[in-house]
């Protein structure tokens, strides 16, 4: 039996999601073409529009403001490059602790003559709003997140959007990790673009949605037909979209409350292991399913692999584990040392996580960390 605590990486599709997907794989395999597809395709078109409506409603948007894309990386790129290219020139900003898809996309914009800036965060990962305010001169876009993918910090988006809009820039919000866990209202948050993805809420891979507030202009990244009003031409991935719609329908904020309790229990248990520290804030300003701690004197990949052998699955910010051999830029961004990043682990809960799993996870981790500290050069002491 696997204890899966890597739900911020991807989640297990809900059986109900799989059920509707199978229907659109087996029988209703058509794909929406033009407005007047043959009747065979109508089933597919209606299902896609129904999913779009559900998703729009969930975030208080209108269906025409939702564009389906293939994943959150594509959403990030479309939002950021799309707005920048439409504006032509100016400054594009992000925080230091965004996902790579955002940071690298912003950075890439330099090729097209844009200025860029990375806004700092405090020790808990909260964006420095004064720094943001003083860096917005000539800005066209600020790209940031609602809940941090790695340390769970929930940003104060209302304050951020006020500052951003005062300065005439647009706000793009990566809400992928918060969606389904905290109730989102695009009107109240006052964001201009926002991305949410299916595979993080027990929906299928292969689809994400980009909210584009009515009136916001962006240039597409992909050219082709007029599907998704030409903003995202290409094949409509009907089964995934229908599955996404079902996953949204299944969102229940009571799950989030339960997760938050288990999160706090796990944090308390892990902090009882000596020389362990929490990354990110405590309480309501933390994503309900995110736990992230650094164990001193040990390296994350080793911790992860040992746990893996014992059926406990999660992620680490260790350099050894990353494909570019760099330690987590998020832990470094909040002022953590190289060692803090190297020894950091992220455990992310789902609606199915049980208290028993939490306790077992703690026991396995405690044992593994003790074992590895015995091998460590630092031997558990500095």
């Amino acid at each position, binding site marked *: 039996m696997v204890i899966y605590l890597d739900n911020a990486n991807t989640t297990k599709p809900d059986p109900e999601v799989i059920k509707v997907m199978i229907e659109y794989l087996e029988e209703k395999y058509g794909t929406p073409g033009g407005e007047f597809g043959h009747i065979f395709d109508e089933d597919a078109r209606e299902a896609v529009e129904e999913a779009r409506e559900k998703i729009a409603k969930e975030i208080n948007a209108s269906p025409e403001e939702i564009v389906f894309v293939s994943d959150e990386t594509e959403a990030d790129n479309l939002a950021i490059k799309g707005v920048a290219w439409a504006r032509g020139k100016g400054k594009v900003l992000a925080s230091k602790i965004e996902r790579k898809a955002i940071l690298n996309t912003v950075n890439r914009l330099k090729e097209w003559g844009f200025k860029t800036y990375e806004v700092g965060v405090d020790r808990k990962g909260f964006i420095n709003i004064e720094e943001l305010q003083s860096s917005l001169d000539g800005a066209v876009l600020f790209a940031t997140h609602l809940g941090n993918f790695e340390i769970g910090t929930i940003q104060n988006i209302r304050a951020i959007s006020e500052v951003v809009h005062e300065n005439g820039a647009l706000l793009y919000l990566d809400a992928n990790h918060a969606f389904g866990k905290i109730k989102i209202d695009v009107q109240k948050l006052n964001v201009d673009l926002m991305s949410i993805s299916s595979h993080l809420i027990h929906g299928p891979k292969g689809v994400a949605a980009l909210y584009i507030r009515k009136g916001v202009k962006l240039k597409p990244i992909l050219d082709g037909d007029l599907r998704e009003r030409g903003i995202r031409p290409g094949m409509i991935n009907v089964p995934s979209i229908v599955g996404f719609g079902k996953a949204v329908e299944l969102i229940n904020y009571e799950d989030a409350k339960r997760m938050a309790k288990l999160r706090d229990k796990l944090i308390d248990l892990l902090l009882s292991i000596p020389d362990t520290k929490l990354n990110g804030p405590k309480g309501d300003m933390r994503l309900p399913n995110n736990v992230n701690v650094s164990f001193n004197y040990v390296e994350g990949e*080793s911790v992860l692999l040992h746990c893996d052998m014992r059926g406990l699955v999660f992620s680490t910010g260790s350099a050894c584990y990353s494909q570019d051999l760099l330690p987590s830029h998020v832990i470094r961004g909040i002022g953590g040392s190289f060692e803090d990043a190297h020894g950091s682990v992220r455990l992310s809960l789902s609606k199915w996580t049980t208290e028993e799993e939490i306790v077992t996870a703690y026991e396995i981790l405690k044992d593994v960390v003790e074992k590895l500290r015995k091998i460590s050069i630092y031997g558990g002491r500095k």
Partner: protein
Amino acid sequence: GYSRKVLQYFLHPKNVGEIENPSVTAKAGSPACGDMIKLYLKIEDEKIVDAKFRSYGCAANIATASVLTEMIIGKSIDDAKKIKFKDIVAELGGLPQIKHHCAVLAAEGLKQALAKWDVIQGRREIDERFVKLILAAVIDPLTGESVLH
């Protein structure tokens, strides 16, 4: 992913720990990822009679250090000097490309230990080249930077 043999050495590493009154020790840090190993050697009659290690690093780091200690115990200094990182990789039945530097780290540790031993034996000068050899690859895991800087 890792081979069975790598996982075996990682899960049940041989020769972990320290040697009391070692003949020579060496620390090596990887400039790639910032990890470290420390090697302890006991040398008698130009032969390595015991080897132990400590590690702060990934599974490949632990496995390569462990298999290296096994490879060198019983070898003459001259034979041990011939060990290249590729030999360690081969001994483990291969490593993913991105983890080759972990074997380099282990080989580097051995190279430094044996160079120090030559100095102790009066066969080698402590010149600039030697000092650079010792320090260049040593990475402080707290900063992730070479201690040379």
